[in-house]
């Protein structure tokens, strides 16, 4: 772990033009929703609600919402075979979704036509990396976007507690060779992210560049291909979710009992700083990072 004060000082310089205050949900697209659902349940998520008219399910644990979208038209078609779930969208909590959308659109974001939006929710969206979308959600306090288009699954606890205080810590994005500066510019100009100095690192996967959200509650990690992989064809994409937990080893032990397997190679293995799951369902990976949530979860 690194000095928390150090990166707080860096983030202090940024601004938060969209009023971002965390991640409302992360969406997977897959043609095998049951398989992903059972993996999410092993991780501690519970199915909470189903979309009224589309093949979309909402999973939740603690503060985290994950949407599993298996509506055929919404499946990405260039990233990977659709049986392997792909990270297809991130919804950001903002102070005014329409204002945020207008602002980034004027600055050069690609808007998504309403009919193509995954959940028929009237929430504005733009293109992110690869085939993925970025949603803007402002109804996360008084009432939730899920109340409208989703039907709660009966007799299910709507707010299941998180295992080992798990929370969204960040998202890892794989990018093309020499593309770091482009993407840093994209996230800093449009959203107010701040690039952290290379000495600031979390977890056990320290590659690439780290960007901190303007609300200082989550991170993006941009990773370029290395060595010979630089010359291989690769579509840029969101690669994995990172969960924060205050005790990696204890959380990993709990999850292992639930059937989650962790990588245990000489190079990558669970320790106090972090852990990485073995690839599931053809390539889905989750990362765990030591994080005292209180350090940076306070929105400004």
């Amino acid at each position, binding site marked *: 772990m690194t000095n928390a004060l150090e990166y707080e000082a860096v983030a202090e310089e940024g601004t938060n033009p969209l009023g971002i205050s965390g991640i409302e949900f992360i969406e997977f697209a897959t043609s095998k929703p049951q398989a992903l659902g059972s993996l999410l349940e092993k991780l501690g998520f519970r199915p909470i609600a189903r979309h009224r008219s589309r093949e979309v399910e909402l999973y939740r644990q603690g503060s985290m919402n994950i949407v599993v979208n298996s509506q055929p038209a919404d499946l990405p078609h260039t990233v990977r075979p659709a049986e392997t779930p792909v990270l297809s969208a991130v919804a950001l909590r903002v102070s005014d979704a329409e204002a945020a959308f207008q602002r980034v659109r*004027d*600055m*050069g*974001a*690609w808007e998504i036509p309403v009919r193509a939006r995954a959940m028929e929710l009237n929430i504005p969206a733009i*293109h*992110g*990396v*690869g085939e993925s979308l970025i949603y803007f959600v402002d109804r996360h306090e008084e009432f939730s976007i899920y109340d409208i288009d989703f039907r709660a699954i009966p007799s299910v606890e709507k707010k299941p507690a998180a295992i080992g205080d798990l929370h969204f810590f960040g998202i890892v994005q794989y990018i*093309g060779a020499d*593309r770091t*500066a*482009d*993407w840093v*510019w*994209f996230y800093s*100009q*449009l959203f107010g992210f701040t690039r952290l100095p290379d000495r600031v690192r979390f977890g056990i996967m320290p590659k690439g560049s780290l960007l901190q959200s303007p609300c200082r509650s989550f991170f993006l990690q941009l990773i370029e291909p290395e060595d010979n992989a630089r010359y291989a064809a690769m579509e*840029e994409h969101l690669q994995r979710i990172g969960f924060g937990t205050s005790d990696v080893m204890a959380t990993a032990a709990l999850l292992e009992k639930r059937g989650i397997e962790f990588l245990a190679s000489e190079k990558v293995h669970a320790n106090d700083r972090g852990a990485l799951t073995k690839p599931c369902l053809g390539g889905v990976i989750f990362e765990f990072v030591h994080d005292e949530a209180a350090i940076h979860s306070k929105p400004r």
Partner: protein
Amino acid sequence: MIIRDFGMDTASLAGPLAAKLAAVRRAGFSQVMISASEVVGHPDGVDGGIRAVRDSGIAVTGLETLRDFEGLDGKLRDYKMDVAKSMLRLCRALGGRLLIVEASTSSHANTDADAIVRDLRALATLAIPLGVRIAFKGVSWSRTASNFASAGELVLRADCRNLGLAIDAFDILTAQIPLDDLDAIGPEQMFVVQLSDFQWQTLHPTADNAATKTRYRVFPGEGAHGEELAAFVGKVDALGYAGTYSFDVYNDDYQQMPPDVVVNRARRAAEWLEETVLRRALPVPNMAHLRRPADD
């Protein structure tokens, strides 16, 4: 011999797209600048045009040309943004990494630098998720940027990593700009350099220029300005430019000649510049990364 440092331009050649690409390849060129109209106007439709380019095995230097884009307001601006998006998508579909944008000659264009910078930034931002770079090009009769220096100032102000310059030797030669003026441009800002010669000894500005620009350009060494072009290439190379030199040649005669004949003339031009000026002929792997500005 495979020609790596010089690229052809589909607009130089007559005939259907696939025949042009085949001629380009036969002559040993490995990359080509594509005119959007060639793909969109393909007899088998846009998809057929994209397939023709992808199947040719020739790398795409870039896509040309987005015109009259910057400095517009209201509905005109929205309209041009849609045009820009369409060209960016096409560029990506072709496997291209560069879109050439010519400074606006529209009488509707706002010449306020803030408005122009705002639009260039928006365009560069649109291009980021697609992995496309924007090469902005001054045009002598433009109202927003009439040469590489004013285009360069706008690019510097916009300050986006994927926004740079297309530098056209023709503009420098016709305006008789001293080569040392290029010192103000960093090699990292030069996204592509375009070369052409022309047959007149001198040019009158504006009308003459516009006609020559589109009708009387020839390959380097074929016109009256071979030595100046060689000096230009030498200068750009010394500044540290390691990218493509794209032959930006259009003329009415070449439109009536078989593409193989025209592309062989281009090949002679490439060989002449390679041997007399550039001498990149014996490539050392990754040499481009080691190339440094002459001043260092």
